[in-house]
């Protein structure tokens, strides 16, 4: 049973975001131009966001190798988005028109529509210019939940995934060094995701206030551990051995291990995660953020 809390702000957010989504409707099939072939002598990921940038290995690569890696990192990034958004769409669809949905269904329709469009952009890029998206290396485990826990974890995970992704999109959507198609995909994603982020934070806050006081200390610990682990696991997906292999780098599994613990890479992850961590700390969802392993 959820607590009675004031959802006026959430109601306003839902109304405003529905209006903005309607006013900015984009046709995903005609909005972008897809050349038959891509000139690979371009950046497809901002160099500063490439997973091994700043490591000794990065220093050994010439510009052609770096640009090649930037292409496969883009395919890896788009694959992460495809798998994350598929999970999101499945979860959102199952929450439409539920009795306890807090009046969010009108916005869930836009959310679903926009996430489907993003998957079209990302999927088309991976299919046209690479061998399709990289497969997801995850399996779903069955779990029993306390009242409200499943919804809270679902929307919290979505928030974590989207906040990290959006920082990449925001930077790359403005990066003139990128191939125009890569720049535009990132910009489009950011343009619509920024609305999802506003909704995500507000709804996670409402769910936390509704249920957290009723959860046992044991459940709270489990929920907090799950979110912390999810942040760590989300970041690990950005270090994909298949990306390194396709870019022609040898010993891709060792590269992944090296980059995950390299101080420059940890610093980048920490900086990108900072606004998210601040939100989780301020809301009380993760009170001990200094213990987080990112």
């Amino acid at each position, binding site marked *: 049973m959820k607590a009675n809390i004031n959802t006026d702000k959430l109601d306003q957010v839902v109304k405003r975001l529905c209006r903005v989504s309607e006013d900015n409707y984009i046709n995903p099939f005609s909005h972008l131009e897809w050349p038959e072939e891509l000139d690979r002598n371009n950046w497809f990921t901002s160099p500063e966001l490439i997973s091994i940038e700043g490591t000794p290995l990065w220093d050994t690569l010439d510009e052609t190798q770096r640009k090649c890696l930037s292409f496969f990192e883009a395919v890896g990034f788009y694959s992460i988005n495809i798998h994350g958004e598929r999970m999101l769409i499945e979860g959102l669809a199952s929450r439409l028109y539920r009795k306890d949905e807090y009046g969010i269904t009108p916005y869930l329709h836009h959310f679903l529509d926009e996430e489907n469009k993003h998957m079209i952009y990302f999927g088309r890029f991976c299919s046209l210019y690479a061998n399709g998206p990289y*497969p997801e*290396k*995850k*399996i779903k485990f069955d779990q029993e939940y306390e009242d409200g826990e499943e919804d809270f974890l679902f929307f919290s995970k979505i928030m974590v995934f989207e906040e990290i992704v959006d920082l990449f999109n925001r930077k790359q959507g403005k990066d003139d060094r990128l191939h125009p198609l890569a720049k535009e995909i990132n910009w489009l994603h950011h343009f619509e995701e920024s609305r999802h982020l506003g909704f995500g934070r507000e709804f996670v806050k409402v769910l936390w206030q509704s249920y957290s006081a009723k959860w046992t200390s044991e459940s709270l610990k489990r929920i907090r551990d799950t979110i912390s682990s*999810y942040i760590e*696991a989300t970041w690990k997906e950005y270090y994909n051995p298949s990306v390194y292999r396709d870019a022609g780098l040898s010993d891709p*599994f060792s590269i992944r291990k090296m980059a995950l613990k390299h101080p420059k890479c940890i610093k980048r992850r920490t900086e990108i995660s900072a606004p998210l961590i601040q939100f989780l700390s301020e809301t009380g969802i993760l009170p001990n953020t200094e213990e987080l392993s990112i």
Partner: protein
Amino acid sequence: MSNIIRKKLHVFILENCESEISSISDNTPIFESGLLKSIQIMDLILFVEEISGKEVDVEGLKPGSFKDIDTIIKNFVETKN
């Protein structure tokens, strides 16, 4: 070959589990007993790929495919592809 991989799996699980144990058997449930958390499945899959030299196709797989070391060896090492 399988024995080397078996040993490497033992070491990987012991290094990555939070419990303070020094050994496990080939039949100890990996996730069910809490040795590894479900969120660590990606690390385990990538490790299996690394030591077996084969890509793991996760589509259609269930957590039971990684039940214990014996099951992993049977599913992902002693298979033809």
